[in-house]
């Protein structure tokens, strides 16, 4: 199993973090928040956004209020699979892997709970919302998660999954 890349989008339609591994066996290889990925990010966001509006439409409201709506869990192509995790506060976590593994929900949940919440939400010298004004909303954001704790812990956690 191989992880190719990891993406975080916020409720302002911005990609606030991306990470791409170039050499699969080395967790520290590759690029973080790279300029080149900006377009990929936009495309990925658009893909998910479009699919979401479709899935929303094709399902009725749930009977049990606790169950998720008809959410996308993964998008699979012939070569890879994008695993998705969504929070009530509008964050999307996307993990692009090969298609050997069916479900990465627990992995993404762990990243949210133990890495994102800890090093972003509870980090008082980091923003919790990466938009500072109206101009940065709607996918026009310029701010990224780039603090070392977050990145290092993320890499540490994902390293056994690479290779």
């Amino acid at each position, binding site marked *: 199993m191989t992880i190719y890349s990891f993406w975080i989008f916020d409720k302002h339609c911005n990609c606030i973090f991306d990470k791409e591994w170039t050499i699969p066996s080395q967790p520290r290889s590759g690029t973080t928040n790279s300029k080149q990925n900006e377009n990929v990010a936009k495309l990925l966001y658009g893909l998910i956004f479009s699919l979401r509006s479709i899935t929303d439409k094709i399902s009725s409201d749930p009977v049990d209020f606790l169950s998720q709506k008809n959410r996308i869990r993964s998008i699979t192509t012939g070569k890879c699979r994008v695993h998705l995790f969504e929070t009530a506060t509008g964050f999307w976590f996307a993990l692009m892997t090969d298609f050997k593994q069916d479900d990465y929900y627990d992995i993404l949940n762990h990243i949210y709970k133990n890495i994102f919440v800890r090093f972003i939400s509870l980090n*008082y010298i980091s923003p919790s919302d990466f938009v500072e004004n109206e101009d940065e909303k709607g996918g026009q954001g310029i701010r990224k998660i780039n603090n070392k704790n977050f990145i*290092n812990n993320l890499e540490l956690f994902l390293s056994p999954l690479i290779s």
Partner: protein
Amino acid sequence: MQQQQQPSNITRRHDPSHPHHHHQLTEEQQQFQLFQESLPKINRLVYQMLLNEIIPTSISVQNRLDESDDNSDAEQLKKLSISEKPVVPSHKLVSQMHEIKNEGRYNNILERIRTIGFKLGCKIADLLVFANNPNLNFRDMDLLAIMKFVCRDVWKLVFGKQIDNLKTNHRGTFYLIDYSYQPIKNFALNDDTNKLSAEELEKKELKSVEPFLELPVGIIKGVLEALGYNAKETICLATYIDLPNEDASHYGFSKGISFHVQVTNTTRQQQP
């Protein structure tokens, strides 16, 4: 310096409740534990956030005080629109500390944080002592005993862990070393727009965290005051120290904290 010639580690060696030592708990200690457990509880996270929120709030208070100072005529007007003003996010308030040019303002903020810590320390000391904690042994009620009390009981209560190391010269100077001071253990500066060099980033990060260290400084002084050492005669400073395990600095806050406590008037301990 002569003072630091013979530092000795105290907490670990003598600490009865340290996890590495499997002590048989005395009946009293067991009872105390049961008693402690029976007390009403809340989520530690809530408490920690409240503690951390003291820092941005103190800055916000200073901002507002300065506003009304600058412009007292318009105060009435402002008062009306108080709630309409957008809330400044905590990290923004904290980052304002860099921009403060006025030293007095800066110090006022630190002093406010220290004062809250001080008041808290005073009351905590009373509360803890009253709780009749059998771990407290005030048999030789000297400065060392009080510092141990701070390291173990106060720190454990407020920050959920004990101080890692206590050093003293036995003449009124103490170093309380905490390698992972809980409130800031996850802190790392997020350079949103990626403009700073690594050095600049580190410098700015350490500067940003400094105000958070004033709270424990105040608490230490408060506890000492409550137990008989006048705050005017106590110097307490927090400084960054390197972590013993360099690797750890990549996954959490990059520095340990050393609280340097100096009690200038130790006359109460003066032997005949």
